[in-house]
């Protein structure tokens, strides 16, 4: 006998409803598939053909998931994506960006790390220690906002580490193109640009300082947030 409920559970795994409601939807749809299959078998179809025809009722499981979610929560998939991914990501990015000048204005300046590179050259890297120490809280905030809106694990993680992703994209695409405007760049931006384009060792350093280290700190916050919220259903979280 086919496990229709197991199949529906797998196909609708990302359905963002609370556990009880999700269970009811899964049970109901599984019952529908089971009855369709039984009827097709009764009409003389082979088991293989009956399964194929039964499953042909759903062309796009992701779309069905979004439609069910929309129907039961009265929210459009686009609105849901904005609430679960883009808004928390934007908050995380803004907070992390605003925090940097605020910390500097409070006298919590960056530290300078001197490293010896290839060919005996010295490199100076700027390390914003306090900022990095605050980033887990920012990551946790983004993750919490996404989770509260019913975000899936992927949306929660992306929302939490979004500033690191944005820095990565900026370093990868924006700064090289700014070479055309090199003379218009401020001194520190020009130094970042030169390090990035000319020195492999410098490139690793800048990537570590602006992408990997912040990303790791933000990710720690996301993990802690997920661990804390693990025991709560989306309805509990939404009720907060």
């Amino acid at each position: 006998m086919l496990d229709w409920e197991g199949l529906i559970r797998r196909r609708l795994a990302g359905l963002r409803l609370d556990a009880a409601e999700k269970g009811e939807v899964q049970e109901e749809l599984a019952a529908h598939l089971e009855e369709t299959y039984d009827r097709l078998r009764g009409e003389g179809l082979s088991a293989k053909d009956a399964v194929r025809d039964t499953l042909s009722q759903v062309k796009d499981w992701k779309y069905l998931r979004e439609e069910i979610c929309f129907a039961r929560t009265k929210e459009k998939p686009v609105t849901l994506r904005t609430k679960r991914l883009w808004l928390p990501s934007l908050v995380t990015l803004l907070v992390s960006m605003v925090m940097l000048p605020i910390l500097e204005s409070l006298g919590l300046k960056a530290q300078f790390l001197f490293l010896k590179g290839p060919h005996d050259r010295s490199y100076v890297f700027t390390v914003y220690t306090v900022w990095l120490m605050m980033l887990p809280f920012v990551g946790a905030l983004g993750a919490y906002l996404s989770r509260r809106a019913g975000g899936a694990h992927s949306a929660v993680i992306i929302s939490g580490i979004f500033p690191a992703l944005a820095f990565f994209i900026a370093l990868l695409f924006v700064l090289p193109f700014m070479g055309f405007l090199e003379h218009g760049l401020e001194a520190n931006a020009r130094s970042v640009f030169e390090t990035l384009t000319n020195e492999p060792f410098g490139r690793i350093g800048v990537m570590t300082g602006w992408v990997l280290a912040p990303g790791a700190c933000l990710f720690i916050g996301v993990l802690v947030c997920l661990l804390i919220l693990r025991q709560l259903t989306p309805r509990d979280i939404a009720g907060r």
Partner: protein
Amino acid sequence: MIGSGIKRGTAELAVLSVLQDGPLHGYELARRIEQQSNGALCFTLAALYPMLYRMEQQRLIRGSWETSANGRRRRCYRLTPAGKKRLSPLRREWAELFRALRRLTKVEHA
């Protein structure tokens, strides 16, 4: 077979009309619509359930779990007073539309 655009518009009327005869679970509902429309209206699982959940949110129908004679648990849908109230104006609107289309296209019953 009727195209999906027109079908979507008639879905609410079809569900409310069939449920007027008594409560049914999703599978039975789809079969009944298919049989009573001589196969012209077929609702797949993907089309049926989002629509049922939407109509439930609008309080036109109400679903409740029941156990059938063979021991299977099924969610049965029945019309609510709001659903009954919605049915008559909906029928009038569609009847009016069909009359208008008949006049326009000069399509008559054979």
